[in-house]
């Protein structure tokens, strides 16, 4: 394994420490509970927004903490939901008189940890609601019951509820907005390579030199099927088709289009994919009003990408356009 890592068990804490050192004015790292929070949180004039999830998806979610986005992120180890105690402590730390919203990507482990933490917090008198994000269309027709997974589309939910809470919306209103955005957001991804968790030290699954994995999750879980590598435009079509047809997105719709890199794919390739997706949507009469190209929710060093569409209305578009400032930044 060739990675920038010391002791794999210290991978997440060392990353978080680096993040906080790089953003001393805005971010605070709380090592006891492995969490990143805004230095100005909790603020009693806004609902506190928290996302928890496994690590390994950076910039999600620790680098999405900041003005107009999350108040705190509570990550577990790589690909493991945080222990419920950490979620519980995070909830208490950011408790605001307007309440706390916990955003959870819909996975068994995460659901259970957040359900338990929410129960404990409610018992303590903290006003807390939970919102599950489930934008992944890859797993819709399956046989289990926990339902779709939450993947890169969570960025849009965070952005919208972050903007709403910054504008002073109350908890119910913030939840309404988050559920609305989630309900019009659809994603699907594919992997060109497997990823290597630092603690495992080798790739999570084997892919042949000419094989790709379609419908892959963001935890290195294999997807629904394998296929041979194909030209870039066909890769895009393979994802765009099921995403468009799922909601479905239709002629006349205005959308946000995200091409999300899974960690090991250069941004040059993502823009190539963007160009084709944009043109394909135009052919269907769908207008891309907002574009997002880059890494938003990754799977460690996995090469590959996902396509996300969000159906916009004036409310959602306004929330997505609101200013925000986070740890993941350029300047």
């Amino acid at each position: 394994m060739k990675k920038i890592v010391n002791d794999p068990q210290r991978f997440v804490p060392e990353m978080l420490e680096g993040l906080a050192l790089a953003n001393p004015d805005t971010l605070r790292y709380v090592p006891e509970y492995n969490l990143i929070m805004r230095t100005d949180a909790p603020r009693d004039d806004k609902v506190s927004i928290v996302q928890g999830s496994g690590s390994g998806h950076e910039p999600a979610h620790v680098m999405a903490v900041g003005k107009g986005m999350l108040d705190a992120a509570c990550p577990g180890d790589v690909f493991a939901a945080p222990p419920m105690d950490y979620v519980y402590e995070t909830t208490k730390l950011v408790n605001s008189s307007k309440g706390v919203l916990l955003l959870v990507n819909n996975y068994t482990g995460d659901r259970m940890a957040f359900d338990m933490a929410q129960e404990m917090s409610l018992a303590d008198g903290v006003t807390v609601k939970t919102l599950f994000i489930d934008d992944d269309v890859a797993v819709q027709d399956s046989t289990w019951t926990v339902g779709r997974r939450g993947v890169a589309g969570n960025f849009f939910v965070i952005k919208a509820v972050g903007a709403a809470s910054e504008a002073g919306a109350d908890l119910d209103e913030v939840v309404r907005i988050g559920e609305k955005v989630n309900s019009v957001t659809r994603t699907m991804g594919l992997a060109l390579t497997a990823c290597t968790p630092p603690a495992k030290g080798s790739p999570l699954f084997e892919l042949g030199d000419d094989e790709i994995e379609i419908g892959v999750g963001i935890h290195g879980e294999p997807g629904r099927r394998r296929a041979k590598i194909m030209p870039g435009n066909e890769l895009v079509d393979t994802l765009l088709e099921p995403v468009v047809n799922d909601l479905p997105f239709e002629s006349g719709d205005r959308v946000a289009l995200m091409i999300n890199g899974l960690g090991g794919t250069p941004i040059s390739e993502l823009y190539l994919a963007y160009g084709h997706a944009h043109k394909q949507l135009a052919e269907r009469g769908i207008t891309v009003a907002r574009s997002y190209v880059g890494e938003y929710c990754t799977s460690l060093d996995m090469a590959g990408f996902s396509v996300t569409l969000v159906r916009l209305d004036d409310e959602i578009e306004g929330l997505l356009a609101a200013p925000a400032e986070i740890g993941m930044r350029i300047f």
Partner: protein
Amino acid sequence: MTTFSDVEFVVRTIAQTAVDNEKYFGDLDSVVGDGDFGYSLARGFEIVLKDWDSYDRTDVSTFLSKIAIAITGRIGGTSGPIWGTAFLRAAATVKGHSEVSGDDVVPMLRAAIAGIMARGGAELGEKTLLDALSPVADTIEESIAAGDSSERIVSAAAATARRAADATTPMVARRGRAAYTGERSIGSPDAGAVAVAVILEALASRWGNRTA
């Protein structure tokens, strides 16, 4: 027949086995899961070993509750709530008992199983560790009813666990991350079920030499 030190021996063996098999359990979980099962268990149970002497041993129930809190506080993923709930429910079963006996074992195990089902919503046959735990409870119940020695009970339980873990191989996963791969989960055993078998085999092989 079952003494506090037997309970300690069982917990300690579970913890040691989890730590010793970190890599193996992780590899099992990476076939159709996300590969962190070994890491998660090991991180939780290594704390149990480290703080071993510090847990309140007022009675078995208190002891098991403290273990439950320790591991839920550290194990992430699905396994934290699942294993934590199992220990908590087992503890609750013997709450207020100053002594526990062999007769408490099956109720404790059944309570743990029911707790896991309530927490994660899984049923038998959905390719989870329940598919090993539940037959093990049956075997222990039968073996106790037959008047077997504790050695025989444990080794029968280990044999059942192994068979049951193997039997998860042809199943389609319907719970946990493996379920996302649908039919492709067929052909490899469930990581959690194998872990149960490995733990019971460790218990069986060390049972004769356990410190009383």
